[in-house]
């Protein structure tokens, strides 16, 4: 039977110990300013200091092991983090082995995949780790040859003495280097001297992924474990009665367990459980609000007109601006609930033993998994271990720990190791969705077509604050009012890639296009005018960099030949989120009166691009994601259950529907600012605005596919 490679720190230490006196670098992740770097002997590593929580090891053989602490779900962090360490180390990349770390809060900080924040958080820490190791290796070579360290060069895992041409490998230096005290300060490379950063380095898991090795949580197997699946209740309902007689009669089903409003079927293998789950006869009764989409429609209307909204930002005098307006533009935009639907459904392995728990599986937040498990079991967090598998996608769904806790509860109840698997239907009906949101925008224009006032009301269902009150155009409009209102629903929601901005950006950028059109201005120039006004005389706090935003707008206009292609209708969009700036232009051509989306041009300012392959993946993937969900994504409800239960009715974008995507970067040498999310938000707006140019129709509601009312035709997407 298959078994995942266990990649615990113990294994790492074992590797290092058998290598016999390797070099270990511990470095503090908690503060860039005071990383008291220290070289540790094997014994010291075994008795690790609490201050040291990341490790790089070099064995005498020259092999380098770099731990990657953060969960890998396709953002390529398992490749790009080690690249940064290896760059400063001047390592031979072919000798670098990357190991996924387990949850280790003593030695790592922010072992989270979310918020596009890993690289911004760790960039300097990773570089210092590599640079410190290099310093020690060079110092060891200087001692050995009795020369000044400044006369030595490093490259590709070797130290060279410039004058004599003598060379020695890192592996031959590690024992001596481990006797030298680490420096307080190290000098980092100039970005112009990067050799590895900025080059396309292949995903370190390619060989395993492309030959079907067990990497993912769903692939995990433990001798003697039980498999379990759960039938969950509709939102707002509780179990009234359960008839499990038919389910229990299925061969291969060992048990049916009712717990916490759930009914679990348990057995040795998966298929009998899938069959049995369908044979459960469960009746439910209301236990709170039992909502359908029609209820949400009514609630949205109430919220958009409500006097109860929470003010998020107020600049100038909006009422006066609207009283004195030459023109007023008002529009409402809406976006439905969405499922995250990573290709690997939720799953987790748990083994609760006496006073401890072992967890294995795909999570974006291993520490939350630990803390919630410890709380549930009433045990100390350090008695919960979490092994992080590769994640078959996440998109924010795996920030929650509901599926982890279910596995833990079942393991406790059944007194056995349990792997819990969600079916696709469970995944789609099981909640933690992107919240549904509606927006009402209003803009006042003076006689010259200048935007004098701007109002935004965000109304959401379990969306928290559905605005981003300090984002553009805030700071560039004299009179502004942004408020938000929320309905608390039993339907659970969770961050979904680029939370809030994944629909706010579309709505705002489509609305601004309407305002520009009403003002008789070019959409690009309209945005630039606003930004330049904000630069000259900022209104209130401006928490984005106006110059970086102008930079991507101008470059996108240039790269897309904005307004210069006679047969192409273009839509513009730009958004700042997660510290990075992305502008996009959608090109639509009419073919037999059908709009065909031919191309999206994207210009990204994410600072330094660590790995161009990984970056292109994030930009293209974010755009495909944004486009697919804007076009097709729709989750509607009937009596507390989503009507869509699988990919036959919940449509995901496919290859034929994806246009050419032309990707550019500003490349301004700024430290990396994050890229897992920022490319997604602008896409819906760029497409909606291009559709308006091509057809005159405004798309104010997602999914677009339900808004196409062109006579005798339908929108075609893809490359014709």
């Amino acid at each position: 039977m298959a078994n995942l490679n266990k990649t615990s720190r113990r294994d790492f230490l074992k590797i290092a110990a058998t290598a016999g006196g390797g070099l270990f670098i511990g470095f503090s992740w908690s503060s860039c300013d005071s990383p008291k770097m220290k070289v540790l002997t094997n014994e010291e590593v075994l008795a690790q200091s609490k201050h040291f929580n990341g490790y790089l090891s070099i064995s005498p053989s020259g092999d380098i092991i770099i731990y990657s602490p953060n969960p890998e779900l396709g953002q390529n962090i398992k490749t790009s983090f080690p690249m940064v360490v290896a760059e400063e180390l001047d390592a031979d990349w072919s000798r670098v082995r990357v190991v996924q770390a387990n949850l280790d809060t003593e030695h790592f900080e922010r072992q989270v995949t979310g918020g596009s924040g890993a690289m911004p958080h760790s960039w300097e820490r990773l570089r210092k780790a590599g640079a410190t190791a290099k310093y020690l290796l060079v110092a060891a070579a200087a001692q050995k040859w009795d020369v000044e360290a400044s006369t030595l060069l490093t490259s590709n895992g070797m130290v060279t003495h410039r004058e004599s041409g003598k060379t020695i490998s890192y592996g031959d230096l590690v024992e001596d280097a481990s006797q030298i005290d680490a420096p307080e300060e190290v000098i980092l490379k100039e970005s112009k001297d990067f050799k590895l950063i900025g080059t396309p380095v292949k995903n370190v898991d390619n060989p395993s992924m492309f030959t079907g090795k067990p990497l993912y949580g769903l692939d995990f197997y433990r001798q003697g474990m039980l498999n379990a699946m759960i039938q969950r209740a509709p939102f707002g309902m509780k179990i009234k009665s359960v008839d499990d007689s038919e389910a229990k009669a299925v061969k291969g089903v060992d048990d049916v367990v009712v717990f916490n409003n759930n009914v679990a079927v348990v057995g040795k293998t998966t298929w009998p459980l899938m069959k049995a789950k369908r044979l459960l006869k469960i009746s439910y009764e209301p236990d709170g609000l039992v909502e359908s989409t029609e209820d949400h429609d009514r609630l949205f209307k109430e919220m958009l007109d409500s006097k109860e909204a929470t003010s998020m930002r107020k600049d100038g005098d909006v009422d006066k601006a609207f009283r004195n307006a030459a023109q007023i533009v008002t529009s409402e935009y809406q976006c439905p609930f969405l499922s995250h639907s990573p290709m690997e459904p939720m799953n987790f392995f748990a083994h609760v033993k006496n006073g401890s728990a072992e967890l294995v599986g795909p999570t974006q937040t291993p520490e939350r998994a630990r803390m919630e498990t410890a709380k549930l079991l009433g045990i100390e967090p350090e008695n919960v271990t979490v092994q992080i598998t590769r994640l078959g996608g996440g998109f924010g769904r795996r920030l929650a720990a509901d599926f982890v806790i279910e596995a833990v509860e079942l393991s406790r109840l059944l007194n056995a190791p349990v792997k819990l698997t969600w079916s696709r239907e469970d995944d789609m009906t099981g909640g933690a969705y992107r919240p549904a949101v509606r927006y009402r925008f209003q803009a006042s224009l003076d006689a010259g077509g200048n935007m004098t006032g701007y109002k935004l009301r965000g109304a959401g269902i379990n969306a928290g604050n559905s605005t981003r009150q300090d984002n553009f155009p805030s700071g560039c409009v004299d009179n502004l009012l942004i408020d938000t209102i929320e309905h608390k629903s039993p339907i659970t929601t969770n961050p979904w890639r680029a939370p809030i901005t994944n629909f706010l950006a579309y709505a705002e950028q489509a609305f601004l296009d309407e305002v520009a059109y009403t003002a008789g201005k070019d959409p690009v120039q309209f945005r630039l005018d606003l930004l330049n006004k904000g630069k000259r005389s900022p209104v209130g706090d401006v928490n984005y960099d106006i110059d970086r935003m102008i930079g991507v707008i101008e470059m996108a206009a240039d790269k897309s030949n904005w307004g210069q292609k006679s047969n192409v209708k273009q839509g513009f969009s730009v958004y700042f989120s997660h510290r990075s700036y992305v502008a996009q232009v959608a090109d639509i051509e009419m073919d037999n009166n059908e709009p065909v989306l031919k191309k999206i041009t994207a210009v990204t300012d994410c600072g330094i691009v660590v790995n161009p392959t990984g970056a292109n993946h994030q930009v293209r993937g974010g755009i495909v994601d944004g486009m697919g969900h804007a076009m097709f994504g729709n989750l509607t409800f009937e009596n507390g259950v989503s009507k869509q239960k699988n990919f036959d009715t919940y449509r995901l974008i496919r290859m034929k529907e994806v246009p050419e995507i032309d990707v550019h970067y500003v490349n301004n040498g700024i430290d990396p600012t994050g890229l897992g999310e920022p490319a997604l938000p602008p896409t819906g707006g760029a497409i909606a605005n291009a559709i308006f140019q091509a057809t005159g129709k405004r798309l104010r509601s997602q999914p677009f596919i339900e808004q196409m009312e062109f006579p005798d035709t339908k929108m075609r997407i893809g490359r014709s």
Partner: protein
Amino acid sequence: MAIYNLRVNGKKHEVEVEEDTPLLWVLRDHLGLVGTKYSCGIAQCGACMVHINGETVISCVMPVSNIGEDEVTTIEGLSINGDHPVQRAWDEVDVAQCGYCQAGQIMSAAALLKKNPSPSDQEIENGMNRNICRCGTYHKIREAVALASKIK
């Protein structure tokens, strides 16, 4: 329960399962071949794509009782050393993000190229359109299939 003698990746395997058990779950739960992925279970996404006698088959809806003597090939058996032209192209182009769907994509691509060694862009899209990639690696997949068609 019934006993089935399956030919998978050139080896014979005896399994005792219910006759309606999909090949996917026989591979994953009974033979430990977990490279073939579960994602939708209703033949919509292609993550569980395998070959039967060289033809693509969506294994999540293929009952084990239908297999008989047919030769099943999974991602683990596509090549001995992971060096099938499609696997090499996938590595060269660096196709994957999360990677979960890629075994199914590779199996679809390998079968496509066997039938049509030099597919046009349109033929690549038609051949690959059954496979969903939630991360959106479609551009890279197109590129990798085209590259694989040139690798001998």
